[in-house]
């Protein structure tokens, strides 16, 4: 997709709304990488690559989708390289609620903390509040769990590519995704749904 051969230097003006796009990409990259400086670099790379290959953009998709596709490649590259290096120093502390031993099941594998009914907000204002809580819950997930979950659910990377990038087995990815969903589900339930039971 990125045509290195046809390198043409273009100005910001030739990519309309570049600041808005930048903002979006940055939010996405920061969420995925949990590293503001690295996110800046990756987004910069993405926009430069986009400007170089803007001639190949054919309006088949929205600009945002196109840029997100480039960012996805850049992020996967970063994670692939990082995977070959010694363990990252972040995310070593596993928060209390995230310990694998803390499951909502009893010894027989039956729910001890049953899932509750969820009243999903549809009003715009509470949607924003809800998304805020959602992000807080995600930021509490351990790094290894969050990394896999974001790749899958936010960056929408296929599972095969995730296992290759992170150099893990399909089953390991399944475990990470399961933990992510269990943690997120419980966090949303206690931080939002139990407090926003509408009449």
């Amino acid at each position, binding site marked *: 997709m990125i045509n290195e051969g046809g390198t043409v230097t273009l100005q910001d003006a030739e990519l309309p709304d570049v600041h*808005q*796009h930048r*903002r*979006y990409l*940055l*939010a*996405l990259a*920061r*969420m995925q990488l*949990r590293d*503001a400086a690295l996110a800046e670099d990756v987004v910069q790379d993405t926009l430069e690559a986009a400007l170089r290959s803007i001639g190949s953009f054919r309006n088949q998709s929205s600009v*945002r989708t196109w840029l997100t596709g480039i960012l996805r490649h850049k992020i996967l590259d970063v994670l692939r390289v990082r995977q070959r290096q010694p363990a990252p120093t972040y995310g070593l502390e596993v928060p209390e609620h995230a310990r694998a031993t803390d*499951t909502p*099941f009893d010894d*027989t*594998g*039956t*729910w001890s903390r*049953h*899932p*509750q*009914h*969820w009243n*999903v907000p549809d009003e715009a204002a509470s*949607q*924003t509040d*809800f*998304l*805020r809580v*959602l*992000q807080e819950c995600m*930021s509490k997930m351990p790094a290894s769990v969050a990394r896999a979950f974001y790749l*899958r*659910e*936010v960056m929408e990377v296929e*599972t095969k590519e995730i296992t290759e990038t992170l150099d893990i087995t*399909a089953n390991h*990815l*399944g475990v990470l*995704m*399961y933990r992510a*969903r*269990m943690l*997120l*589900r419980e966090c*949303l339930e206690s931080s939002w749904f139990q407090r926003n039971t509408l009449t």
Partner: protein
Amino acid sequence: MTHNCANTTRLLSDAQDRGLVEEERQHIEKHLEICPSCVRFQDHMAMLRVFMHRLRAGLGDEAVGEIASHDPPR
């Protein structure tokens, strides 16, 4: 595989990421018939995916985008 909520929820999570084999589908089906909590869990799995899409869509917005960044933008 033992028929319990822990194993069923794991399969319900897997179903979000890969195609299940017939045996796994039957395991889920059989358990959901007798377990309202796991039915609810299944709904929550689908809802989580919707929430993530909403979050993604809202990332460029003033209100939501800033929170994503864990630290204030420059």
